[in-house]
């Protein structure tokens, strides 16, 4: 479970995150929705301790994110930046992160092969990452992020740049993570995706949470039967939302 309490982060005069609070529960998919530049990535970066909040705090399974190393052990992170080591194969890329996470060699092999199976990576897993397609890159990045069997999974725009088939598989994979009882938090600017997947939607605009509801409640709250219209109404403009 991830609890976010009144996070603030400013870069110079720009208040990128200006009082964000929400909770992402176990066994649920929580979607962080907002237009480009709304503060989604900055919020996530504070969750996986890449950045320190100016104010507010983050609790992961009850542990304060000030204890960065302990929190990172409980998180599987697919950041916005998902570069691979191009001279290493997918398997070697995954093993590197497993060692850094301190996963015992036997567990690592078992889990790695399971992830390669689930993510359908076997046809390229022993090829060097140089020349991977966007989809192959994202799959490898997700596999290495989950190699230590984290209870909480953070995905920053996981379907970005993927084709239709790869996107469908990604969504299926996220549902599987939920079924395993994990806490899944992902960001997106694609409304349709969030509507399909999420048990709970946190809408961020201009660094603030403007809604934190189930998709159903969101429709009720805005009085719009169409979810897209509901979002536009909440955010206050149609800017940056893709269907």
């Amino acid at each position: 479970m991830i609890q976010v309490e009144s996070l603030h982060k400013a870069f110079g005069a720009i208040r990128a995150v200006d009082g964000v609070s929400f909770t992402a529960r176990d066994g649920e998919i929580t979607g962080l929705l907002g237009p480009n530049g709304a503060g989604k990535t900055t919020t996530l970066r504070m969750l996986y301790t890449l950045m320190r909040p100016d104010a507010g705090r983050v609790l992961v399974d009850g542990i304060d994110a000030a204890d960065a190393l302990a929190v990172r052990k409980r998180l599987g992170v697919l950041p916005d930046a998902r570069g691979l080591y191009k001279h290493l194969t997918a398997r070697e890329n995954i093993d590197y992160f497993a060692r850094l996470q301190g996963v015992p060699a036997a567990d690592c092999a078992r889990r790695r092969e399971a992830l390669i199976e689930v993510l359908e990576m076997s046809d390229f897993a022993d090829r060097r990452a140089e020349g991977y397609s966007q989809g192959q890159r994202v799959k490898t990045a997700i596999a290495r992020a989950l190699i230590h069997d984290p209870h909480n999974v953070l995905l920053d725009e996981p379907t970005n740049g993927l084709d239709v088939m790869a996107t469908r598989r990604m969504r299926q994979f996220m549902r599987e993570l939920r079924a395993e009882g994990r806490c899944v938090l992902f960001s997106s600017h694609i409304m349709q995706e969030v509507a399909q997947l999420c048990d709970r939607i946190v809408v961020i605009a201009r660094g603030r949470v403007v809604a934190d509801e189930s998709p159903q409640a969101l429709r009720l709250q805005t009085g719009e039967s169409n979810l897209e219209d509901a979002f536009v109404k909440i955010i206050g403009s149609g800017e940056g939302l893709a269907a």
Partner: protein
Amino acid sequence: MNASLVVLAKEIRENLRDKRTLINALLTGPLIAPLMFVMIMNVVISRQLDQAEAPLELPVIGASNAQNLLEALRQQGFDPQPPVADPVTAVRNRDAAAVLRIPTDFGKSWDKGDPAQVELYYDSSRRDLQQPMKRLQAMLERYSRLNGAMRLVARGLSPALARPVVVDERDQSTPRSRAGALFSILPYFFVLTVFIGGMYLAIDLTAGERERQSLEPLFANPVARWRILLGKIGAICTFSVSSLLICVTAFTLAGRLIPTEKLGMDLGLGPLFALEVVVLMLPLVLLLAALQTLVAAFSRTYREAQTYLGILMVVPALPSVLLSVTPVKTVAWMYTVPLLSQQVGITEMLMGGSLTAAEVLTCLLCGFAIAALVLAVTARVYGSERLAISV
């Protein structure tokens, strides 16, 4: 396994697969300097030998005006060439290194006992042509002195009268020290090798990783950043030390290809010298790795880091250039300054001297202390938020 070792092992493994890094660190970096050195030394030495031993061939104008003089010069190894029309143009156009002209009244002055004049045309700004001119000058001087002495003897006077002061030169250089003077550029080559050996790795492991967007996921792992930094520094040092070892070995072998014995020189490039060089260089290996990583951490892209490090590469040349332009006596404090300590230490060994334990210890302690300081600064920069953000 310790996280730093994990990083170290992965970086070495990955970069062994990178042809560009490999060629730079293990081939061109360490081998170009010894190769260049052997080539230059062979040219320089064989040229000096040629000039000292070969017959001196210069055009002579009016040779028939001083038959005896020319005969005496011939006996000293002078080979008069046919005259040129205009000695000034010949020297200016480098058709001749120097031209000797004997005026028609040479014989008349000689017979009268007046100073008989010969003209020597040369260009003192052409340093490479000075050797033949100086040889001819010396031959003429010898002839003049000999005949002067004979004239005094013929008049019943001692030739010693005409030489109130005699200089007895006592050169204190040893064959080894003459070799050392020639080889004082060597320390710079070693420093440069360490610099180049680690540079591509240093750029790639920080600026390159950030540019390729793999630094942010790396930092999401539960490993303190200074541990990651240590692993990376370790990988850089492994490459630069390998580079240095190859370079020192190549120099040890190259020393045999240089015909120093022909010049009466002796070059102590043995295994002991190699070992001492490696030991003296160790603090510099760490210092440069930390410095390069620091620069790479401030650069946004691979190219930017490359540019900055290209500028930084000039810095190690400074002590070498300074010491060769204004040679100074080596004093104790010099061993406390990295770069300078390596320069004076290695030069000292090349000159046939040996370093005291205190000097070696000063070099190592001060070198490692400053390296640790730079490393601490680098670790601070590594811990900053903006480092990982790859935009």
